[in-house]
């Protein structure tokens, strides 16, 4: 343990102004419009006519210090040393000189090995989480499955061939640290937690009892020790207890599955934001490349690309054509589990005579 007793210095957020590309600083709040020059390349034009070029590239998010240094070398060479990252963990190289674009793109794709793309109506990088690399709760890997999926989707990242942006996400346990997405992959557990009664004393009992949304956990004395028990009928396998208490193991390598959800939309454009909805469940959790996941995503993307009108996000497209046709076109079965059974269930029924026939 370090000797230094470090009082917090309350420094707060870095002073971003020092990190702004000169053209950003100069035209801060004075941008006029933008164009997409080619997939992955934007130009933002300021009111005074200044042009700022952005080259967006797919990043693995997790990278070694050496890789960061490589990125810096490129930015130093082409970008006066300025880069930024995006909400979806892509990187953006910023530059004022259009003539440098080709060289930059070439260097990024060839030397760094990061694909340029992800702008406009493309499949952008997949928002994802820690997985087996660092978290204590994951049922699957995040970075690995994302690598496998993006390998499959590389052309969709490098071209802008969809009706609108496609934002994917994947999480590694039912806590779902990742974002909603047009298409999202999540883990599902299928049993109540297994309790390690011997280890139970380490927890604050009331906390784990209180955290259960189904009121399924109650204090109990097991083998003479204070512990808890789970009412199996009430438990909905959410894993909230597991996050609180490592002695309540929710995962099961044999039975955990993946499911795919569609129609998450966070923008307010046209339609209000929407939650994502269950598309297909029971997909095997199949490292190292999770081919079943990629195949299912491909089915959805193909149907979306064929069927949607310009500007329709995945969820908007499905709302227009109806869920029946979504299931027809993707070939996924519609099952009783697709029917909402939450307290809001009634409002997700088709409460009208509006039926596509």
């Amino acid at each position: 343990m370090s000797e230094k007793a470090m009082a917090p210095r309350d420094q707060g957020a870095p002073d971003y102004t020092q990190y702004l590309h000169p053209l950003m600083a100069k035209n801060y709040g004075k941008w006029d419009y933008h164009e997409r020059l080619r997939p992955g390349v934007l130009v933002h034009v300021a009111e005074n006519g200044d042009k700022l070029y952005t080259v967006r590239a797919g990043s693995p998010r997790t990278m070694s210090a050496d890789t960061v240094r490589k990125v810096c070398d490129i930015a130093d060479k082409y970008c006066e040393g300025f880069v930024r990252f995006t909400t979806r963990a892509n990187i953006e190289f910023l530059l004022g000189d259009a003539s440098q674009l080709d060289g930059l793109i070439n260097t990024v794709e060839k030397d760094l090995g990061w694909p340029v793309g992800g702008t406009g109506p493309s499949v952008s990088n997949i928002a994802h989480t820690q997985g087996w690399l660092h978290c204590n709760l994951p049922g699957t890997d995040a970075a690995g499955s994302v690598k496998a999926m993006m390998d499959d989707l590389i052309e969709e990242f490098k071209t802008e061939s969809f009706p609108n942006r496609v934002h994917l996400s994947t999480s590694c346990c039912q806590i779902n640290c990742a974002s909603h997405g047009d298409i999202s992959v999540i883990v599902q557990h299928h049993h109540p937690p297994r309790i390690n009664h011997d280890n139970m004393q380490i927890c604050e009992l009331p906390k784990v009892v209180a955290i259960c949304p189904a009121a399924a956990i109650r204090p109990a004395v097991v083998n003479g020790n204070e512990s808890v028990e789970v009412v199996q009928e009430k438990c909905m396998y959410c894993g909230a207890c597991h996050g609180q208490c490592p002695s309540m193991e929710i995962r099961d390598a044999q039975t955990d599955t993946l499911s795919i959800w569609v129609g998450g939309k966070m923008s307010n454009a046209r339609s209000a934001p929407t939650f994502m909805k269950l598309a297909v469940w029971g997909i095997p959790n199949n490292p190292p490349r999770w081919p079943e996941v990629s195949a299912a995503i491909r089915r959805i993307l193909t149907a979306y690309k064929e069927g949607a009108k310009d500007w329709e996000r995945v969820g908007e497209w499905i709302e227009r054509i109806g869920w029946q046709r979504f299931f027809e076109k993707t070939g996924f079965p519609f099952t009783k589990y697709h029917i909402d059974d939450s307290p809001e269930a009634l409002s997700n029924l088709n409460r009208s005579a509006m039926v596509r026939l």
Partner: protein
Amino acid sequence: MSNEDSSPGMALKTPLLNELESGPWPSFVKDLKEYSKKRPQIVQLLNQLEESYENKWNYWLGKIINVPGYGGGVIARVSEKADKYPALANFHTVRVIEPPGWVYNTAALRNLADSAERHGAGILQLHGMSGDILLLGFDDNGSMNVAEDLMNDGWDIGGSGAAMRTLQCCVGQARCEMACFDTMKTTKFITDSFIEFLHRPEFVYKFKFKLSGCGNDCGNSIVRSDMPIIGTWRGPMQVNQEKVAEFIDEKGLEYLIDNVITRCPTRCLSVRGKELKVEDSECVRCMHCINVMNKALKPGKDRGVTILVGGHRTLKIGDTMSSVLVPFMKLETDEDLENLKEFIERVWEFWNDNGMDHERIGEFIHRVGMATFLDGIGMEPDPRMILRPRTSPYIKFEELAPTRFGGEQTQNPKVWNRESEGPETAD
């Protein structure tokens, strides 16, 4: 001393992970394998990860460790397989507050890389889902040391536990013509104003802000933050009719009708000849028409923000979507920012005084009801907060129900008895 050299000789054996080396998308496996050549600790990391891939199982356990004076900022991990992989015995992540909008110069990035490598495994994640910089693989000592170094270089850490989290905002005015307020400045302002709540868990549960310059919500705020702040405007949209005409000449009238006119959620657009008419009073600032015609249309000039409340993801009651709390607030002057600060404090106070342990503010509102919440923070109800008024006639009107049984008038209990038994009995 960092734990990097603790097991120099181990051989890398990752047949499954190797399958993630090839393919066109950048491979973290390839990167780390390469990096492991000079960092033996990474060999152990990859070998343990390989076991996870083999057994579909995870070998990290949590523990709690804090930098002195801080209550958050380090996510401590110990390996269950520390016997086999001693370099992973302690393998913590340090959460570093990112520059608003994720803008960097290379000096800053190199500095982060150096610190990460000097005291830890030299792995960076740019960025975590809550926006911050994640540096991986510190032992207890390394965590302290990296914090010290970072602090000396002007960085700050924090954002874990029942505390405020690092904020996250879209690039905003720095590079976007849509931006209706200064997302970066506001992000820094909130971060700095409440820095102690980022450092020390003093809330009933975590609290997140995310900021987006306009309704496109590139900050992805609405379901992932407790308080999304989203740019908007009052009054008329800016329409450049010349550019409208150019748009029509270029794309055709049918394109305009199919892609703009019929897509407006409140049907407030119409085309008259080559002019576009906007019924501004019914425009809900959805941004769609501006997105499509971004040379001809712009947000109005009287700009500000809409503040929402209550978003969180799945855990416990399922995803909750934020909903409108402040329909419009100016956010330009220092005074505006102070108002915002005061407002946040009011919200926090009521939530922290009345929220249950591990209850996000969205869950809290779900439990007590929006009306009670507004009462609690001293705000008047506004119809813009709702999609539609209630449909159930079972209401307990305080005004209309003088006590009839003698004694005290009963408080106004919720019409629907929604207290979940679990959390409350334990409270």
